[in-house]
């Protein structure tokens, strides 16, 4: 049976991390997890140590993509077959991981936990951005991804090396689009997400604009010029 690692990127999540992690340990002991503290300025790391949680403590802030890649490198070193990202604020519910694993076992490389499979998106600015990215991915890859910005994604064994070690493979929609073009099989499973109950979101308004511009330019323009990823390539043993 394939072993799944849950990556929990945490930036200033002192108010949430205990609740999120203890629920995971209590109700979902079948999964391994690793908390990646992304150079938090609050007590996140100290609290994790005090509770004996499995913690990778980055000395500096690398941003969500950097923290995710730290988790991916952990997965690579420990030889996991599947990795799923659960946000440290608890908005992603672990009960949907089993559905994602089922899809992975059916041969998919990436499984996205989607809030909008068969459901309408609310009319907010954020969802306008989501629709735009969905449209661009449809246009360039033909794939229908209803929730491209969902942070709850599961990656199979073939994806881990690329996501851990290569530049320009952050956990973002353009990476998904690009991996589809490189031959990765992607699907979605319906999930429910909770609103964050405490703490600050990564994405501020100023960052959102740059985020949207980068993702859109990357999907509709840059990807035509990138080298396709070799999904069969083995990881450099220096990392194992």
């Amino acid at each position, binding site marked *: 049976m394939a072993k799944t690692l849950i990556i929990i990127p945490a930036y200033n999540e002192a108010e949430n991390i205990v609740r999120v992690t203890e629920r995971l340990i209590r109700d979902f002991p079948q999964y391994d997890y690793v908390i990646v503290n992304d150079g938090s300025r609050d007590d996140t790391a100290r609290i994790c140590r005090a509770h004996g949680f499995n913690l990778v403590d980055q000395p*500096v802030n690398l941003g969500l993509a950097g923290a995710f890649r730290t988790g991916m490198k952990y997965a690579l070193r420990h030889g996991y077959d599947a990795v799923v990202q659960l946000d440290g604020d608890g908005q992603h519910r672990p009960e949907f991981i089993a559905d994602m694993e089922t899809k992975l076992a059916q041969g998919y490389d990436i499984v996205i936990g989607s809030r909008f499979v068969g459901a309408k998106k609310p009319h907010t600015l954020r969802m306008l951005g989501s629709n735009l990215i969905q449209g661009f991915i449809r246009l360039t890859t033909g794939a229908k991804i209803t929730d491209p910005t969902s942070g709850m994604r599961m990656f199979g064994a073939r994806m881990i090396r690329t996501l851990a070690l290569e*530049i*320009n493979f952050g956990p973002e929609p353009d990476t998904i689009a690009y991996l589809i073009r490189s031959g990765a099989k992607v699907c979605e499973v319906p999930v429910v997400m909770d609103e964050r109950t405490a703490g600050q979101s990564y994405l501020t308004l100023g960052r959102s604009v740059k985020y949207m511009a*980068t993702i859109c*330019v990357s999907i509709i*323009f*840059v990807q035509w010029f990138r080298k396709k990823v070799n999904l069969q390539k083995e990881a450099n043993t220096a990392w194992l």
Partner: protein
Amino acid sequence: MAMTFAFRVLLLAAAVLMLWLVLSNIRRAKLAISDSLFWFFFAAVFVLLALFPEIAFWASRLLGIQSPVNLVFLLIIAVLIWRLFHLTLRLSAQNAKIEDIAQRMALDANERESKQ
């Protein structure tokens, strides 16, 4: 001096060169896509000015600059100075981060060694 045909071709050539440089470096995994965004927009402005020199004429009249070419120069210099400043800020932040990482690693190693 007005925007001559040769000058417009020069702008276009510069944009093409810029795009080629940026894309080939992304291809060789040496440039982050998020960092390339500026260059795409910069190249787009070059193309825009080359194809529609009326923009430079209109803006130079508005600002009271005698020649549209001078406005193009001014624009390029201003954008580059702004960019340079942001790069300086980023460099400072990175230096601070690297220093912090190295110091923490060294202090952690010292703690491990003194425990043994």
